[in-house]
């Protein structure tokens, strides 16, 4: 007779120690895979069951001095949509996969080209001409095979947005250009989901978090009818150091929303300028 999932996890767990000497029960990546095959369930479900039984998936061991078992399980149960898999999106994918954000919904219709190589972590010389969605899926699988991945190798638009985003707990706006961000914001409000918007140009960038009733993108860019197709990035390009920093801040907001933390960049914008090392939190409410 097949053992119960919790019994199987307990049987294959072992004693480990944190760096400060505290001990804990741990389950390895190999054991997680083995159990998911025996029980025909997803690795994510094995890890959630383990955490709920007080057993730490070893891949999250360094999370566990900041996040509780319950919080790590909440992260694993969450669904995050990443719209745009270029510079910002590539880093967001990397961080959320390692953090253990359980279900990732990836949306981008683009393919990689050489001018992406300076900043887009999912691009590589070998991945040129591959779809960004496919590369993202491969990268996540290589980092964390316990996660559930849905890919949509299409650009977000008025027709598909609500359908693709409907089941998200958080949506991350990693789009390039400005107009499409308003399409995404409209859809996020429609599905009642918080949106974390990041944007960069040259060595400058900003992040804001928009809940459905918040001020939103219009308070940053003005009316969508008055917008240029692109912003300052058209004349300045995008440097990898600012892209990575802005994406990391977006991921911090994702985790805090999922874990119900109150200090967020709502109705505020966090601006960063790496040329003169200016970091400011500005009030959008005026």
């Amino acid at each position, binding site marked *: 007779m097949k053992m119960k999932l919790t019994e199987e996890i307990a049987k294959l767990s072992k004693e480990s120690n944190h760096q400060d000497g505290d001990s804990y029960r741990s389950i390895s990546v190999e054991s997680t895979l083995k159990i998911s095959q025996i029980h025909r369930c997803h690795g994510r479900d094995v890890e959630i069951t383990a955490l709920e039984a007080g057993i730490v998936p070893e891949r999250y061991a360094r999370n566990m001095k900041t996040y509780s078992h319950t919080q790590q399980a909440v992260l694993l149960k969450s669904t995050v949509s990443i719209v*745009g898999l*270029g*510079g*910002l*999106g590539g880093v967001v994918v990397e961080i959320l996969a390692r953090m253990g954000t359980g279900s990732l919904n990836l949306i981008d219709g683009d393919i990689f080209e050489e001018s992406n190589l300076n900043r887009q972590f999912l691009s590589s010389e070998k991945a040129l001409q591959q779809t960004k969605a496919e590369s993202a899926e491969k990268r996540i699988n290589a980092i964390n095979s316990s996660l559930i991945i849905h890919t949509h190798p299409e650009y977000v638009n008025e027709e598909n947005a609500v359908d693709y985003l409907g089941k998200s707990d958080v949506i991350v706006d*990693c*789009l*390039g*250009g*400005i107009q499409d*961000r308003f399409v995404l914001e409209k859809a996020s409000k429609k599905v009642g989901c918080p949106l974390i918007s*990041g*944007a*960069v*140009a*040259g060595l*400058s*960038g*900003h992040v804001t978090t928009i809940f459905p009733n918040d001020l939103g993108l219009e*308070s*940053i*860019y*003005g009316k969508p009818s008055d*917008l*240029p197709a*692109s*912003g*300052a*990035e058209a*004349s*300045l*390009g*995008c440097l990898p150091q600012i*892209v990575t920093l802005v994406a990391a801040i977006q991921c911090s907001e994702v985790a805090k929303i999922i874990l119900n933390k109150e200090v967020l960049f709502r109705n505020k*914008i966090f*601006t960063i*300028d790496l*040329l*003169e090392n*200016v970091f*400011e*939190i*500005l*009030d*959008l*409410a*005026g």
Partner: protein
Amino acid sequence: MERYIQVRLFASLKDFSPTDPDNFPISHGETIKSVLKRLDIPQNEVKLIFIDGVKKDVTYRLQGGERVGIFPPVGGG
């Protein structure tokens, strides 16, 4: 009495920075719109204006001593 503001221009607007951005002279009650004009910054390239960390518009009248931050639209991803 001479009055000054600190002007911080971001991204593509940096080229318009005055020689001494920490001490940019203004007249009492001068608007942001007037400051933009004196710095040759095209108004349609300005999307966000912050006075002492709070969003304001081009009609805001300066008293002196303010920190003024001005952003173009930034949309790269």
